[in-house]
């Protein structure tokens, strides 16, 4: 196994894990299937792009603008769409399916607004792309930065869910909704916080993606699909599972592409996605939830 491929796999895997983290958080706390998650990543990527090309601000600083933008979007969606709908029994009865359709609409809106504002063309910028040698492999610096940040945030997330009060409250809500309300956890606040955190991590992932790849208004959906693969691999509502799932997918994809060729990348991701859904919808790790 070459170190070159291994590092590439780690970079891809840590970004996938980061994207999947937010998706899992939003599903775990509110049962919302956010198929617009990739569009939030896209928004983060555009904030970084405009930051560097208009204001000459590096992506690492733009990240602190991208995250609040995404959080505001999350809050707008929560207050504008879901808060009232979630009080209607008719909506809640089929919340997963309904929220999927709603977020699908949101994703179509965001894609086309971005395409209208920024043109549908692909864009990219150069950032820290000199090559360095790491344990026998040649890697551009930007990939190492991506890896470092994504991995650090993932580790921080695990600690957050184990140690902090908010993290524990979110976990409690995921596991026992009614019981957590009984012990005095403010559900509305926690739901809003999870949605905003989920969106913020997606935007951060978008900033990281834009550092190494070209971006476009329609870059989001494949990322949503990969995030779903990761979440389903790791188990819904299982945060540590997302990290492991992300790494598994990163390895599968990198080595798969190395063996077959880049034009098979999409086929492979969708094939893994379908295989996972068909064979093991409850996830490879940990027990899933009932899926009715």
């Amino acid at each position, binding site marked *: 196994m070459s170190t070159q491929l291994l590092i590439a796999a780690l970079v891809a895997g840590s970004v996938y894990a980061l994207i999947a983290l937010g998706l899992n958080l939003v599903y775990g706390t509110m049962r919302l*299937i956010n*198929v617009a998650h990739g569009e939030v990543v896209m928004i983060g990527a555009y904030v970084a792009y405009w930051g560097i090309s208009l204001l000459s601000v590096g992506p690492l600083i733009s990240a602190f603008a991208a995250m609040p933008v995404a959080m505001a979007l999350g809050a707008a969606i929560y207050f504008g*769409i879901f808060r*009232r*709908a979630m009080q209607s029994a*008719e*909506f809640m009865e089929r919340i*997963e*399916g*309904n929220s*999927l*359709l*709603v977020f*699908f*609409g*949101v*994703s*179509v*809106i965001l*894609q*086309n*607004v971005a*395409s*209208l504002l920024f043109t549908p063309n692909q864009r990219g910028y150069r950032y820290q792309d000199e090559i360095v040698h790491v344990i026998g492999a040649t890697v551009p610096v930007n990939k190492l930065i991506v890896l470092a940040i994504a991995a650090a945030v993932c580790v921080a997330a695990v600690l957050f869910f184990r140690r902090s009060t908010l993290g524990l409250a979110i976990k409690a809500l995921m596991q026992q909704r009614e019981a957590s309300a009984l012990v005095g956890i403010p559900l509305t606040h926690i739901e809003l916080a999870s949605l905003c955190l989920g969106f913020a991590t997606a935007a951060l992932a978008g900033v990281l993606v834009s550092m190494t790849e070209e971006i476009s208004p329609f870059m989001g*959906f494949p990322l949503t*699909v990969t995030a*779903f693969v990761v979440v389903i691999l790791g188990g819904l509502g299982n945060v540590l599972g997302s990290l492991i799932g992300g790494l598994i997918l990163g390895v599968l994809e990198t080595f798969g592409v190395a063996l077959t060729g880049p*034009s*098979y990348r*999409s*086929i492979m991701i*969708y*094939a893994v*996605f*379908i295989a996972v*859904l*068909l064979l093991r*919808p409850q996830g490879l790790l940990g027990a899933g939830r009932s*899926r*009715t």
Partner: protein
Amino acid sequence: MMARIGRAASAVTAVALLAIALPVVANSYVVGVCFTLLVWIALTESWIVISGMTGYISLGHVVFVGVGAYVAALTWLALPIWLILPLAGLTAAALAMLVGYPCLRVRGPYFVILTFGLSELVKYIVVNIESALTVSGRVLFGAPGVETLYLIALALAWVSVILALIVRESRFGAALRAIRENEEAAETIGVAIGKFKAAAFVLSSIVPGMVGALLIMRSTYFEPLEAFNPQTSVLIVTMAVIGGSDRPFGPMLGVVFLVLLQELLWTNLPQLYMIVVGALLVAVVIWLPGGIYGRIQRMATAAAR
């Protein structure tokens, strides 16, 4: 039950018979718009056979359209049109048969994203086949004019509506709706859920396959990214949901509404059209469950009291 189908079916048939005369009285722009209208009616009505009836929402219906289009592109000029169309429908049905049974074991939102993933997978497989054959887009020479295609679209739309009517009012349809309301209960009282779901899936795939063949005869060009464009699936779902997907007449309202909107916006502002489509999808799911038709019915019931 038969009387109910009979009345609705004869009304639909009467309208369809009248519509045959359209190319004689209208110019080709109007015929073109009506062609589009009929194509979308055929697609959404076929969609409700699986998704409206069973609640298994397919977000990948375009896969059948694309496969039908590909079959037509491959057999163009090698076979006559009256053979290409059924062949396209049968190929789509064969695909539905192949994937239906395993896919329909997956439930709820998982099925929705699965269907989307499946249509994307097939799209990229076709893209790779075409690039391996070093073909980039196929042009169809000598396709029939819009008047002929309009008549085929009319026939397909008629078949699709009648099929939806029959399925809805039959025992088969009752079983499908039982699956939608409570799959475990349906299974307990003896509905062969696996078979019924697969049968509905296959039934719903035939017309889209033929529509796919028809659509590339209209555009005279086959390109996999266009033929398998996921936007088609989005539009089918939105049209059906806006209209109300439980009854055959609901989706027609959605189709008419969105096709007219498309005529207004598509050429100048395609993105704005999709933004409106997305917003409508959100609004209907949140504020108008049951769609326009559901709302009209509710008001009619209230007025009758």
